[in-house]
């Protein structure tokens, strides 16, 4: 738990949602392990820099779908089409519970799909559970593909 590496890439254009998610992650002291990208383009740029060895290896991407410039679906598609990021866990964290979005995300290889609850306690719990699961419980392959 002492690591200060940036292990979560959070892609979300709502500063309010980001703040609430960081607040939830603080419960497990994960908040300082998050890099925030506010649109799809920024996310792809950051991923590229990680691939080139500039950033810490990522453990998971929390990806919103409705984003300015490059949508979440497009970000997911490009993560999966790059051999360096193909196995990077991607969790869709979005407000949309429309069936076409769900289908498309799973088709493109999302690892999980979580609908952001409106109610604060449920939302906080969902996000801190996600942080705990992907940073602590989940075991990635030793050979980190991203770097």
């Amino acid at each position, binding site marked *: 738990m002492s690591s200060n590496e940036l292990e979560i890439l959070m892609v979300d254009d*709502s500063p*309010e*949602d980001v703040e*609430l998610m960081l*607040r939830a992650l603080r419960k497990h002291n994960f908040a300082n392990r998050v890099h925030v990208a506010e649109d799809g383009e920024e996310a792809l740029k950051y991923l590229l820099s990680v691939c080139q060895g500039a950033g810490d290896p990522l453990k998971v991407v929390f990806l919103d779908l*409705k984003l300015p410039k490059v949508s979440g679906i497009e970000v997911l598609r490009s993560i999966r089409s790059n051999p360096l990021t193909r196995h990077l866990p991607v969790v869709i964290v*979005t*407000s*949309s*519970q*429309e069936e076409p979005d769900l289908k498309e995300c799973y088709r493109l290889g999302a690892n999980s799909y979580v609908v*952001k*609850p*409106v*109610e*604060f*306690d449920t*939302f*906080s719990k969902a996000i801190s559970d996600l942080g705990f699961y992907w940073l602590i419980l989940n075991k990635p392959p030793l050979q980190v593909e991203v770097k």
Partner: protein
Amino acid sequence: MRELEIQALALLEARQQIKDLICELAEAKARLATQEALLCAHQARYPSSQENAENNESTSRISKEQPEGSKRSAPAYQNLPLAAELEAANKELEAFCYSVSHDLRAPLRSINGFSKALMEDFGNNLEPEALRYLKNIERSSVQMGMLIDDLLQFSRMSRMQRCDAVCDMDAMVQSTWLEIAEQDSQRKIVFSKMRLPGITADRSMMRQVWLNLLSNSAKFSRNCVVARIHVEAEILNDEVVFSVEDNGAGFDMRYADKLFAPFQRLHKARDFEGTGVGLALVQRIVRKHGGRIWAASKVNEGATFFFALPRNTGKKPTEEPGL
């Protein structure tokens, strides 16, 4: 206190966003109304364009190739500019639903989240009255979240196609009831039912009917010393009439016409929570199956909901306009 100001600002901003979205909602509704009016005008002008001899060949050929069920929808408007317009209206509706589910929910989460965060982080510095205001904000945002969810479910159901199969109503009622009873296991409710006949209908829709009717009965009987719910069915000519009876709060029959209208409620939110969508949804489903629904009640003496479904499902469903 600086943070408090920031959070108050965030709340204000979220409120503005919701206002904007509500304006958009009204605009989209107005556009849809125009399109519906256009469609009505068109139907009045060309009452049977499908069989019309002057319609070109391609239309009739397409009609022949269509499966029976879809005959009414697409080909009738083939080659007419209206077809494009209708499709555009449909697309707009889809986009609109998406927007509602996403865009309305996001600021709502912010309102709910920051009022909770205010309470958690600064609750000690706030007057009891200020805390009460915050609780009101929070409660309202949760209520609006339920309204949005129900609205979406309602519009989705309205557009959904019926997919018929054999429904074992007896088993369905049993399992639905167990599900409801489990959610509220502290309460004691005397549940009884007679053996129910099977029927041909859309299973997931029928499940929704039972879920809504039974959970309504459970909700409105929660102030009874001993709550009783009874389900039965009777075969009358070519119909099966199902009924759900409870001994709960009931309602005033003078307002019975409002019972199935969406977002109409006959009870105060203070007494019984809800959005007023459940029964509207049930009515839509029953009508989609060519059936009828009605209720009988007396205030404080319980209510009985009846719905009749045709035993022969070849009957055409009652047409219901989309939301």
